C-alpha cells in the first residue's frame, strides 16, 4: 500500500511539474495583470526587427519590444473576421505611425493561432500587412492566452523599469482605427 502511495505521489509530482508550461490558461489575459510569458523568435525580416527594436537573432519576450505600448492581435488566416478586419487593422498601423503621440511608442503585432510560418506569410501577403506577424503553429501561445476566439486584442503597457501590465484584453477587431488608438492611448496612460 505504501509503495502504491509513493508511486502515486511521484506521478502526481511529475504531472504538476512537467505540465505547468503546457497547461491551458483558464482565462484570457486579465487587465491589470501581467501577460503570460510568450517567447517568440526574432523576425527574419530586417524591417520587422527594426520596428520592434530587436537584436539580429534569437528569441524575445513581448515586454522586450522597444515600445511603451504593445498591441497584440491574436488572429488566424482561417478566421473570416480576421480576414474581414485585416485592412482596417492595417489602417490602425498607419494611424499609429502618423500620430506623434504614438509613433515609436505604440507597436502593433499579430500572432497567428495555429498558423504555420507559411500560413502567416499567406495572410501577410494577401492583406499586405505592414507590421510583424508571428506563427503559433502548435497553439502554445493561444493556450497561454486562454484559447481566446479570434480576432482578439491584448494591449500591454511597458514601464521604464521593464515591468509591464495588461491594460486591454478584449474579443473583437478594430472598427474605427482613430477611435481605437485614442482608446489605447487613454487606457495605457500614454495620452
Amino acid at each position, binding site marked *: 500500500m505504501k509503495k502504491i502511495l509513493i508511486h502515486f505521489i511521484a506521478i502526481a509530482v511529475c504531472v504538476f511539474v512537467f505540465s505547468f508550461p503546457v497547461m491551458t490558461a483558464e482565462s484570457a489575459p486579465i487587465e491589470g495583470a501581467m501577460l503570460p510569458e510568450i517567447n517568440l523568435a526574432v523576425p527574419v525580416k530586417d524591417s520587422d526587427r527594426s520596428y520592434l527594436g530587436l537584436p539580429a537573432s534569437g528569441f524575445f519576450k513581448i515586454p522586450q519590444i522597444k515600445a511603451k505600448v504593445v498591441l497584440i492581435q491574436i488572429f488566424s488566416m482561417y478566421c473570416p473576421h480576421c480576414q474581414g478586419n485585416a485592412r482596417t487593422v492595417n489602417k490602425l498601423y498607419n494611424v499609429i505611425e502618423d500620430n506623434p503621440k504614438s509613433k515609436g511608442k505604440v507597436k502593433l503585432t499579430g500572432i497567428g493561432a495555429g498558423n504555420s510560418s507559411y500560413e502567416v506569410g499567406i495572410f501577410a501577403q494577401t492583406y499586405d500587412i505592414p507590421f510583424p506577424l508571428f506563427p503559433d503553429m502548435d497553439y502554445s501561445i493561444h493556450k497561454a492566452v486562454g484559447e481566446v476566439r*479570434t480576432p482578439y486584442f491584448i494591449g500591454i503597457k511597458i514601464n521604464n523599469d521593464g515591468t509591464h501590465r495588461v491594460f486591454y484584453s478584449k474579443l473583437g477587431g478594430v472598427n474605427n482605427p482613430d477611435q481605437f488608438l485614442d482608446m489605447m492611448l487613454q487606457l495605457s496612460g500614454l495620452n
Partner: protein
Amino acid sequence: MKKSNCLSVLIGIVLIFFLGTTSSYGLSDVFKDNIYDPKKLKPTDSVLKVKTGDSAPDFTLPAVSGGKISLSRYVGKKNVVISFVPAAWTPVCSDQWPGYGIVKSIFDKNDAILLGITVDNIPTLFAWTNQMGDLWFPVLSDFWPHGRVADTYGVLRSDGVAERALFIIDKKGIIHYIDVHDINKRPRLESIVRELEKLNK
C-alpha cells in the same frame, strides 16, 4: 532513486506527453456560440478504398450554390483538390475552409479547383458556409445517399461523418496524393500547395 520510483517518473512524463497534446483550435468569433465541440475523436476511423495512382471514382453531388457538380467535368481541364471535412458547425472544420477562401490565386496558379465536401445536407451547409464569407470554390453535399462518395473513397467513419481528408487528382483523373488527416487537426496549407506544385513540374 529506486527503480520503481524511476518507473513512476517515466509514467508521469508519458502521461504529460499525452496531456500536452490534446487537440486545439483557434475558433473565429464569426461562429459565436454556435459551434458544437465533439471533443477529441479517434484520429481516423475508416479504411481507404482508393490509392495513389488509381483513377479517381467519379461522382455527382449537389452544390450549395445550386446545380450539381461531377468530378469528371474537370478531366483534361483542371487539377482537383477534394477536401472532405467531417461536419458543419464543428470546431476544426469551421476553421479550415475559410483559409482556403483567401488562396484562390494559389489554386489558379496551379491550374486547380477545390471541391469541399461534407455529409451534411444543403440547408445546413448553406447556413454554415454563409458565416465564412465568399467561398470561391464549390461546396458539395454528400448527404444522400448518406456519405456515398465518402464511402466510395473509403473515408466514411463509423459514426457516419467523413474523415478530414484531402485527395489531389491530376488532370488525367488520377489520384496523385491522399491525406487522411487526424480528424482533430487541420492539415497544413503548405502540404496542399507543395503537392499542387509537384503536379505542375
